[in-house]
């Protein structure tokens, strides 16, 4: 694996002559982490693929304006989350769902997705996660699946650590309640 040095990579990204090669390294380094974060949000592989491509395209177009105030990962996560939310909102409009409604269409999509082979319990867990409001779902995914620290999540989402802890606690209680009333 290529050695990753963020400061050096940022310097090469800001230099036009080395930008292309550096960006390719950036894609290689972050593609998998970002993909799984996006996939947990949009659930279906085809949508996750589109969102990941758009995330990197937006990053490429905006790299000149990257001032290094935050870490590259924070910046990329922010773009990815905004893109995912925008795709989910578009889908909700297409399916005529209220913006805070359960993403029932995603469960249907997940079960039909050829790149999902989870058992009944895994589908149930996904149902429970998808019943959460968008923000709680993002916090839950980052903390539970990616085991990210609250400080890092706070930097990405621009929410205080206290609010994130409350959000995560609420999300876990809701998921457990959902699972226990269906099993």
């Amino acid at each position, binding site marked *: 694996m290529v050695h990753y040095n963020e400061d050096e990579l940022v310097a090469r990204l800001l230099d036009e002559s080395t930008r292309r090669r550096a960006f390719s390294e950036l894609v290689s380094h972050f593609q998998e982490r970002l993909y799984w974060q996006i*996939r947990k949000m949009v659930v279906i592989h085809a949508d996750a693929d589109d969102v990941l491509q758009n995330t990197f395209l937006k990053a490429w177009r905006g790299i000149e304006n990257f001032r290094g105030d935050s870490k590259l990962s924070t910046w990329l996560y922010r773009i990815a989350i905004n893109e995912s939310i925008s795709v989910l909102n578009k889908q909700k409009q297409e399916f005529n769902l209220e913006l805070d409604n359960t993403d029932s269409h995603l469960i249907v999509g997940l079960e039909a997705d050829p790149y999902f082979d989870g058992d009944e319990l895994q589908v149930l*867990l996904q149902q429970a996660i998808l019943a959460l409001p968008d923000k709680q779902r993002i916090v839950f995914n980052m903390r539970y699946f990616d085991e990210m620290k609250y400080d890092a999540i706070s930097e990405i989402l621009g929410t205080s650590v206290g609010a994130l802890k409350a959000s995560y606690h609420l999300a876990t209680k809701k998921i*457990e309640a959902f699972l226990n009333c269906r099993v």
Partner: protein
Amino acid sequence: MKDKIEITDFQNRPSGMKVPEGYFVDFNERMETLIDDSEQNNNQRELKKGLVVTLKPWLYIAAMVGFFAFVFNFLLNIDSVIDQSTPASMLSMADDEGVIEDAVYASVGEYALFEYWYAEGE
């Protein structure tokens, strides 16, 4: 099986979500192609935008010159324009007093006409 499910029961269990084989291996290459296409489109857009930006002031100047030339020409030839817009038949009719009198009488009521003649002493 436990009576109550807890969220920790799912930890370290696979999510069931998969990706196509070699997805992450090919992704960077696909991204490169996408960036190339995006750059090409961007360059074409910039070129078009550049052309419009360059030509815009000249088009405005040409339109203004054309407009002033038209107004100037119009003001210079205004007399002949008025002459041409009045048909000759109308002018000859205006000379014929009988025609005008008939036209006036036709538009005046009978009572008003008698009052007029009375005042004139006819």
